[in-house]
């Protein structure tokens, strides 16, 4: 019997664990270690953040789902990896610390034959002065939609602003990224349009100034260096697509901004031109930068090998080319294909947990040397595909004795479908349905725009909103392992 341990129960970890158990059956053991008791369909948090959905609509308890599937669930956070065992135990193991199941604070060792790191990000609010509450969570001056609880709080704050506007008090909304090295601009993109839509529905749109602040050097970069859509006989830049949408809705934008300080009602930011400026707000939702969750690693003699397994940002090294050098030398082939750690071949990292070889967007710094560059997005569809591909490789290793991973999942060889809500409503809602293929541009294979124009598309409309809503129900159905769940693609 082999034991597969999956650290993390988000989109990629949950996908990996559930498919692994289905493919491995009762003969082998699948263990999930996650500090959370609830699974959250994060893409719908933006609807919670404007009061269109409640927390209960976007989460469900993990324990009964894992019990039904026969997965060993430990509500705990992973603390360290010991890929060579230690002086008393020759088997590879991880240490965990319980956060629930009436064992809070207790530590335990878990041996493994195969390990998947799907720990996702640490929401690094502490990276920006005033963005954190001092304990690593969102601070008092801004709101967040990164978790369901954050989004519930955001909706209450939004409601309070709407009440003020109804009484004749103008409000300024600031939505965007809270640091120069953020990713996940898409969430801010969705939230700002949903706020605008909500204010319009409440009849107070004219009382609001709405501003987008972003570390992107142009709107529509999305951490992917922008993209070109096939549209109306043109290869149209995502810059034009995004700017058009912001202009149509009367939204202003601040580009190339590194927010370095948040105070009550005011942010201070540095621009790419090196200037410091401030922006006042009454309501602000600023996405924090992501970092690794802070796992440590030790060798057989208990020597610290964290730097061997992890990049300085805390993400796990896999089969990527980490020596690509400057932007001019970057290639699509730098991106990992098997997601296997090259020092310890029974360890894999998927989703946000793997260390990208470099950004996708061109690195930029302010005149003062402050890096202001979107980091690569690797959430949602790509992370689920990675989770499934790695699982299939491990299953082949366990059941069929494969010596090397049999499946690949490179972001330079896969596409992504992104449906970004621009307002909810069965007949009044709209969303931007975007497909991009491949995620990482490959200028050797697709000279010109770096992407396949037949697979890179974008359109705004009600149909995309329907798709987004169906995805909400479809993926929750799939994650709950309800009948036919394997038929719903990642």
């Amino acid at each position, binding site marked *: 019997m082999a034991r597969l341990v999956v650290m993390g129960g988000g989109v990629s970890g949950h996908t990996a664990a559930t498919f692994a158990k289905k493919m491995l059956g009762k003969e082998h053991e699948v263990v999930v270690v996650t500090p959370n008791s609830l699974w959250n369909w994060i893409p719908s948090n933006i609807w919670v953040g404007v009061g269109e959905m409640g927390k209960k609509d976007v989460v469900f308890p993990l324990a009964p789902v894992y019990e039904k599937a026969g997965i060993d669930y430990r509500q705990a956070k992973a603390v360290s990896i010991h890929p060579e065992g230690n002086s008393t135990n020759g088997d590879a193991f991880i240490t965990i610390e319980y956060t629930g199941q009436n064992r809070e604070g207790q530590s335990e060792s878990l041996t493994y034959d195969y390990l998947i790191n799907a720990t996702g990000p640490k929401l690094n609010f502490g990276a920006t002065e005033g963005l954190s509450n001092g304990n690593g969570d969102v601070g008092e001056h801004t709101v967040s939609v990164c978790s369901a609880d954050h989004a519930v709080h955001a909706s209450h704050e939004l409601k309070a602003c709407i009440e003020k506007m109804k009484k004749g008090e103008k409000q300024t909304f600031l939505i965007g990224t809270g640091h120069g090295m953020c990713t996940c601009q898409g969430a801010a993109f969705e939230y700002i349009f949903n706020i605008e839509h909500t204010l319009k529905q409440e009849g107070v749109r004219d009382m609001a100034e709405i501003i987008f602040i972003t570390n992107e050097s142009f709107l529509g970069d999305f951490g992917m260096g922008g993209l070109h859509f096939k549209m109306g006989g043109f290869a149209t830049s995502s810059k034009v697509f995004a700017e*058009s949408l912001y*202009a149509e809705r009367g939204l202003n934008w601040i580009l190339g901004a590194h927010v370095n300080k948040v105070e009550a009602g005011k942010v201070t930011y540095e621009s790419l031109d090196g200037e410091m400026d401030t922006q006042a707000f009454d309501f602000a939702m600023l996405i924090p930068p992501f970092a690794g969750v802070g796992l440590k690693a030790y060798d057989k003699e208990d020597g610290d090998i964290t730097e061997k397994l992890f990049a300085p940002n805390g993400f796990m090294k896999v089969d990527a080319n980490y020596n690509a050098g400057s932007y001019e030398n970057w290639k699509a082939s730098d991106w990992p294909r098997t997601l296997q750690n090259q020092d310890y071949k029974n360890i894999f990292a998927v989703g946000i947990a793997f260390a990208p070889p470099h950004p996708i967007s061109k690195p930029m710094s302010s005149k003062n040397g402050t890096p202001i560059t979107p980091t690569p997005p690797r959430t949602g569809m790509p992370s689920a*595909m990675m989770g499934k*591909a790695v699982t299939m490789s491990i299953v082949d290793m366990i059941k069929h004795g494969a010596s090397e991973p049999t499946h690949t999942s490179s972001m330079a060889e896969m596409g992504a*479908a992104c449906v970004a809500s621009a307002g909810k409503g069965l007949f009044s809602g*709209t969303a931007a*349905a975007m497909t991009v293929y491949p995620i990482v541009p490959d200028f050797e294979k697709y000279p010109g725009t770096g992407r396949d124009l037949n697979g890179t*598309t974008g359109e705004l409309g*009600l149909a995309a909103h329907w798709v987004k809503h169906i995805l909400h129900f479809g993926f929750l159905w799939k994650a709950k392992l309800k009948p036919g769940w394997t038929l719903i*693609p990642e």
Partner: protein
Amino acid sequence: MAKHVKHIEPYSPQFGTMIPLGSQKFLRTCVLWQIVRFVAINIRMTILILKSHH
């Protein structure tokens, strides 16, 4: 047609992009047309998914 375009301040960032006019805005929420687009988006995404699994 002009009623669909609000004033845009010349030389502002918003002035430098394309602005949808009435027909485009109408089609975005026209249920019949959006049913067609719904089918098209789903086909497109299915092809993308099939191309992405290795």
